[in-house]
């Protein structure tokens, strides 16, 4: 039975390519700044965050090494997660007109949207590269490139898996419950504050129970791994790896199960 799904997916691989291509093209087509904006937005928002929170959370003797880079790492991952999952959430309902007329495997839509947002994310990583280069060349910071630095690709891929899983789940729920879109927007806002993006977990001086709850956020593990490689140049804590990987794969399994069980009913609600 699983073989049937793989065959079907293989047949529609062109559609996946075309939708990814379309999303990327249309994202920049009519805008003035175009691709420049993908670069400017993280830069500008990081500058604002540094100005606002730098005094309180960003003293470099607190072990942050370099506050702007610390911020940027968290912010880039968060931004990818929140934008990719929001777009995936709207992808099935947004393609209602096609789904009602032609047979297509519906999980293609969240998958294609997440891949196109992933490409945007990779472009935005160039901001990180530029900022690190600036700090390493023009200031005497503690940033250094080590053999662990290229391992940043691992948390990035785990983030991709997480987005695919959560995106699939959300896209199914959005078909049946229109208000999930509003709820999730609020949830993402909350997520920005409970993920240690502009602060360090230790700085909050919370009781152990709260700390544990915040660490249960898979983005905490992913961002921590990313920072280990890029900011500190060290190997990450393997707990983070197993937890975030396991969480992401679980999300994908739930997403696939939801699609399998519910996709025949979509047409009645679209």
């Amino acid at each position, binding site marked *: 039975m699983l073989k049937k799904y793989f065959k079907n997916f293989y047949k529609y691989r*062109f559609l996946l390519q075309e939708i990814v291509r*379309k999303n990327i093209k249309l994202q920049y087509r*009519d805008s003035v700044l175009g691709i420049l904006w993908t670069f400017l937005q993280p830069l500008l928002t990081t500058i604002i965050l540094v100005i606002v929170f730098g005094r309180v959370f960003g003293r470099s003797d607190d072990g942050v090494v370099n506050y702007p880079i610390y911020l940027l790492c968290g912010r880039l991952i968060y931004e990818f997660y929140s934008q990719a999952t929001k777009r995936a959430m709207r992808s099935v309902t947004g393609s209602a007109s*096609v789904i009602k*007329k032609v*047979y297509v495997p519906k999980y293609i839509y969240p998958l294609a949207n997440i891949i196109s947002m992933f490409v945007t994310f990779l472009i935005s990583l160039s901001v990180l590269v530029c900022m690190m280069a600036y700090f390493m060349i023009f200031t005497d910071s503690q940033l250094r490139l080590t053999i662990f630095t290229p391992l940043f690709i691992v948390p990035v891929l785990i983030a991709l898996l997480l987005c695919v899983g959560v995106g699939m789940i959300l896209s199914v729920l959005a078909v049946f419950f*229109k208000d999930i879109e509003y709820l999730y927007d609020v949830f993402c806002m909350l997520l920005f504050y409970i993920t240690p993006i502009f602060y360090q977990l230790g700085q909050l001086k919370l009781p152990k129970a709260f700390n544990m709850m915040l660490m249960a956020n898979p983005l905490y593990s992913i961002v921590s791994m990313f920072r280990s490689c890029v900011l500190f140049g060290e190997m990450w804590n393997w707990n983070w790896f197993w937890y975030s990987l396991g969480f992401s794969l679980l999300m994908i399994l739930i997403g696939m199960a939801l699609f399998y069980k519910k996709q*025949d009913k979509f047409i009645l609600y679209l």
Partner: protein
Amino acid sequence: MPKPVIVVDNVSIMFNLHSEKIDNMKEYFIKLVTRKLHFNEFWALTDVSFTVEQGERLGVLGFNGAGKSTLLKVIAGVMKPTKGSIAVSGVIAPLLELGAGFDMNYSGKENIFLYGATMGYSRKYIESKYESIIEFSELRDFIDVPVKNYSSGMRARLGFAIATAVEPQILILDEVLSVGDAKFRVKSEAKIKSMFDKGVTVIFVSHNTDQVRRLCSKAILLEKGKITARGTAAEVCDIYDELVKKK
């Protein structure tokens, strides 16, 4: 012995007509708890069975609401039957509404590849058909314009051109030959006739008995979700015309 290309076996489709449409979580939860989740069953199709052999042209007649579009959607794989089964062999090009796979912000040219991919075709294959699509649709000068700026006639021409260029084994036509100006109608009928000669299997839904008589070999009549007549196109068209007169 021509092989059956579409087998519809005792297919029934049931829709739940809620007394109020529930589409958010709060209402669903409240109704679940207060036990007000009513389901109002509506059987759009009941025990529909027929086979279509390769190269046959089947006409589907019936009044509005008889279940014709639902039947086409089940054959196209867009809907799953509540009971019974459907077996289809071959690529289906559904012309259920011309230009359904289009993205409005994309140009005509880009949409050609997108639409082709929606039916499972690779970019290379569509490239080989590109010229004939442009020619048939007569949209060469407008092909780089976003489709949202096309007139409905232009979209119809483009959709039709793509769907017929890809040489499907099964063609499903839902009253689409009545779209467009007279020139386009003549052209599309001629194109469909040329596809007949290549052995395409066709399912054709229409209210126009003249067209059904001209284009189809067999026909079925649907009334309120059940097949009430089947036979040659001429026979069933006569029955349908009688029913129309009675109303």
